[in-house]
Structures are given as C-alpha cells and as structure tokens.
C-alpha cells in the first residue's frame, strides 16, 4: 500500500497520512537567532485583540460582582434601575459643580456598600471614559477658543494678534466660564458613567433585562436584547480567534492595506457564521415551542428595602435639585 512506503523510516511505524517530504522534517533544534531586531508596532490587529479580550473580561467580571452579597445586589432590579436612572436624569439637570460633586460622593458610597472595590470603580470610571471628556474639553477653558472673563492670564501680547482673518485677542487666559463649564462637564460625565457602571456591575444581565420591562419595553425587544448579549460573547470569541490566528501568522508589521483587507474579510467571515448561527438558533427555538411570541415568567417582589432604596434615591434627587436651585 502506498501508505506503507511513505512511512518507511524505521522509527515511524505509525501509518499516517502521506506527508510531503518537506514536512517530514522535525525542523532545526536550534536555529538562527529568533530576534531580528525589528519590533512590530502596536498594530491594529493587536489593538483589536486587546479590545475584544477586554470586552470578554468585562462580561465575566461584571457577572462576578453581581453575585456578591452587596447592598445594591440585593435590591429588586426594577427598584434599582428606576432609582439609578432617576439619579442619572437628576445629574443631567443640575447646574452646580458642587451638587455634581456631592452626587459623585453618593455613587462612591453606593459602590462601597455594594462591595465594589473603590480602586476598581474609580479606575473603571475615570480611566476609560472621561479621560476623553477631559481632553476634549481642555481647549474650551482658554479665551482664544471660547470667550469669557479671564481668570488666570497666561500670556499677554499687549496688542491684538491676528491669524489671517481670525483675531486671537490680546492675551491668552483661562476663563472663569471656561473653567466652570469644563468642571461641570467632566463631573457630569463622571457621575453619569458612575451610575451606569453601578447599575451594570451590580445587576445580573438577566435581571436587568426584566427590569427594563418597567419602562414599557416590549417583550420581543427584551428577548432580542438578551439574545444579542448572549451571542456577542460567542462572536467575540470567534473574532478574537481570527485575529489571534492572524497575529500568529504575521512576521513583522503588516501594511495598513493588508490590515484593512483582513478586517473586511473577517467581517465577511463573521457575517457568514452569524447568519448560519441565526438559522440554527431559530431551529432550536422553534423546536422548544417558540412561535414568534416572547413569554416571560416574572419572579420579582418589591420588598421593604426596595421601597427604601427608591425613597432614598428620590430624596437624593430632591436634595440635589434643591441645593442646585439654592446655589444658583
């Protein structure tokens, strides 16, 4: 048999598939130096892998915090969702930096009571999201970008400086309005993100979905939302695998052109897989009696602590609005 002749070497008595000659070589045991001195840049592929991994970890980690026996975790998800979103709206309406700062302190206290490490909480809120808010808002504190009453003059030209048709004024200064506006924006974003993060990490996703029904979200929307969340993790896995395989095959940095091609091909592959998957999921749903109508079993009860939370949130909101009016 052909297979016999192909595995004629004395130490290979396993009848394997007939490998071509170039593959029947274990490779050099010690080769030339692996390091070529060229370090590949932090490529788009690498950044995508990191992003996908971060999202996967966030999902697992949140589920972990949600199962801790903290204050917010014990609450009825509906009471919690209404309370935290109510505070979110309050945070959007107030106009005093001090009030926003107080609201921020409230979110820190709530995180502490929910057994969320403050280090993690503050890092999650400040490091990832408002850093952009901070950078973007920075230019607006200067009078050259936005007019206002100068607070700290950085440079005085003594005369009006013109740049083509635009006037830059006679000095560069940080303005009172700019500084206040910037601090309002940054604090507002921080409070908003803190409240969102609190809701997300202290609530199991399945409970959060049920809580959304309080806001008249249709059942079919909630079913779709729940399935989306579930399949995000599967597709993230598949995508991470594709990009990791790509990285392992790259010798040195790929050109941007190739990377774009790869991103597009990955999208196409993922789309094909997603489509096949959706057909299969559809069959699995139909098989268990689904007919296009989403049904749910509610198992929530508002208890005393839930009413107390709602009350506390309402009181905080009222106090914030009151203080805001008083200060303003």
């Amino acid at each position, binding site marked *: 048999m052909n297979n016999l002749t192909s595995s004629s070497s004395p130490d290979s008595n396993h009848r394997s598939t007939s490998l071509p000659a170039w593959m029947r070589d274990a490779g050099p045991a010690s080769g030339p130096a692996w390091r070529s001195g060229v370090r590949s840049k932090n490529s*788009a592929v690498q950044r*995508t892998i990191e*992003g996908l991994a971060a*999202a996967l970890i*966030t999902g697992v980690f949140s589920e972990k915090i949600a199962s801790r026996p903290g204050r917010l975790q014990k609450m009825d998800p509906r009471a919690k969702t209404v309370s935290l979103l109510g505070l*979110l*709206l309050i*945070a*959007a*309406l107030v*106009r005093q930096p001090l009030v926003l700062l107080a609201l921020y302190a409230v979110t820190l206290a709530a995180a502490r009571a929910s057994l969320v490490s403050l280090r993690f909480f503050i890092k*999650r809120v400040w490091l*990832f*999201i408002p850093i952009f808010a901070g950078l973007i808002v920075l230019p*607006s504190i200067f009078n050259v970008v*936005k*007019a*206002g009453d100068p607070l700290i003059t950085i440079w005085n030209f003594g005369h009006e400086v013109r740049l083509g048709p635009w006037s830059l004024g006679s000095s560069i200064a940080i303005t*009172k*309005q700019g500084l206040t*506006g910037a601090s*309002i*924006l940054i604090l*507002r*974003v921080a409070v*908003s*993100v803190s409240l*969102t*993060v609190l*809701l*997300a990490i202290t609530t199991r996703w399945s409970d959060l979905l049920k809580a959304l029904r309080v806001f008249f979200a*249709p059942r*079919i929307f909630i079913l*779709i*939302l729940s*399935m*989306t*969340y*579930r*399949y995000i993790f599967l*597709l*993230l896995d598949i*995508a991470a695998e594709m990009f990791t395989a790509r990285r392992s095959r790259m010798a040195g940095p790929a050109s*941007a052109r190739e*990377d774009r*091609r790869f*991103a597009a*091909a*990955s*999208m*196409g592959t993922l*789309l*094909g897989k*997603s489509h096949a998957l*959706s*057909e299969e999921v*559809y069959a699995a*749903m*139909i098989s268990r009696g689904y007919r*296009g109508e989403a049904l749910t079993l509610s198992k929530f009860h508002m208890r005393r602590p839930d009413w107390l939370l709602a009350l506390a949130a309402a009181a905080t909101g009222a106090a914030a609005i009151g203080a805001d009016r008083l200060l303003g």
Partner: protein
Amino acid sequence: MHIPDGYISPQTAGGLWALMVPVWYAAGNKVKRTLQARQAPLVAIGAAFAFVIMMFNVPVPGGTSAHAVGGTLVAVVLGPWAAVISVSVALVIQALFFGDGGILAIGANCFNMAFALPVGGYYIYRLVAARSPLGGARRWLGAGIGAYAGVNISAFLTATEIGIQPGLFHTASGTALYSPYGLSQTIPAMMLVHLTAIGFIEFAVTALAVVYLQRGHQELLARGPAAGGGFRIKPFIIGLLLALIFVPLGTIASATAWGEWSPDQIRQRLGFVPNGMSRFAGLWQGIIPHYGAGGNFWSSAPGYLLSTVLGLAAALGLALLIVKLIRMAGRHE
C-alpha cells in the same frame, strides 16, 4: 461617535428619544411582518455582529486606527429596518453594559448611528446597485458609497446635536452647561475627520466585505431587499429632510418647555448657533441675493434652517450626480 451622557442636555436627549420611538415602532412592525418568528434570532445575532465589528480597529492612513461602524453592511444584508433594530440593540448594550455612549443619550446615538446611518447608507446602496447582478461591481461600489455617505450623515447629525448645546444651554454668565463647543467648532471638527478619513475607511471595509460575500455567500446579499420591502426613494428623501429640520427645531421646542427662556431669548440665543455659519455666508451671497434687510439673516432661526436644507440638498444633489455618472458608465460597459 458615541455621545456620552453629560455632553448633551436632557432636553435634546429627550427630543431624540421621542423621535426614535416611532422609528423603532415602525421598524419593529416592518421586521415582524417580513421575518415573522425568525426575527428574534436574525435581528439579535445581527445586533451581536454589529456590536462585534464596531470593535474592529481599521488602520487609518497616518499610522493610527479607527473603529468602523459597519451599520451600512448590516443594512445591506438584513435590510434597512432590521438594521435599525439590530444597530439600536447593539448601541443599547454598549451603553448599558460597556459604558460606551450615555444611557440618556441612547435616543441621540440611535438616531445618528442606528437610523440615519444604516437607512441613508442602504438607500444610497440601492440607488447605485439598482437591479445589477449580485456579483457585479455596482454592488460593492454601492455598498461602499452608501457606507461613506451613511457615516458622514451620522457624523453631521452628531456634530449638530453637540454643537447646539452651548447656544441653548448656558448660565447667565455664559458658562456652558453641557458641551462647550458651538456648531462652528463641532461641524468642521467632525466633518473634516469623517469626510477625509473615517468615511473612506468605512467605504473600504464595507466594499471589501461585500466583495468577500460576493465570492462565498452571495445569498446573503439577496436577502436585504426582501426584508426591506420595495424600494422607494421619495419617502426617504422627504424623511431625511424632515428629520434634519426637526432635530434642531425639536431641541428649541424642548428648551421652551424647560421654561427658562422666552421665545425671544431663544431667538437671540439661536443667533449664537449660526454665527459660525456666517463665515460661509459670503459664499452664498452670490446665489441668494437680498435675503432681507438688517441683521445677519444667517444668524436667525429661519436662516439656520435654510442653510441646513441647502446643505443637505447640495449633498444629495452631489450624491445623485455620482449615481447618474455611475449608471452612465454602467451602460457603456
């Protein structure tokens, strides 16, 4: 392009929520009718797909990289209405769970990225692709042009929503309560990036993905129109025009509801808004002479609306011209 909470006032955010509710309702009905029981898995996994591809980094010329939105691609495959729901769901999850984009701003983000982007992108795709064969060049070209236009429409809306904030919402001393930058700053900043870089990324990625589908999964390209119903351009143009007019109008109306300013004051404040546009006023003077005596017409509310409409008309005219040229080129083939 995700607007975080804090950047826009609750009034603007609420107005856009109110605008999105009927859109979701209509899209939901359309999807239910065309996909029936299949809608849940198809739309859900479409949303998961939209979510995941928004995380792909695509290299931008100049060494950095950007995220593609991919909404037009979703619309090409699932049809525009299913895409509205899918991308909305993806955005809701990003906001609720990953803190990407605000919760109050979900209405705004969905309006920009889940409605204007896929629907605009899809109809331009249909305009270019028309009844050309599924494997033909006009398919990927159309998807690419649609994606370019879609992401720019979306960027323009985002810039508008953020840009009207300082004029409408500030304290007596002029401290901005939300985003501090006016339209004259947000529109050039956003459009410059999107017209010159991100739009082309979106074009390249979407077109290449469609080419990929043409080779291996042509049946996926055939599904879109079936799920989207017949192709009518008129309601789309009218809808887009209305939307562009009513977004700023809606925010003005909600500002009145807030009860802080009398309409007179708002008109004054609105003067704030198009100040940036007055720079371009000279450009228009030759075209529209004598638009009223005294004051700067472009600084008034009607002037602002007119400039929006004119800008949109110019953009659409350009798009139609391109389509016409492509069709002529196609006929010569």
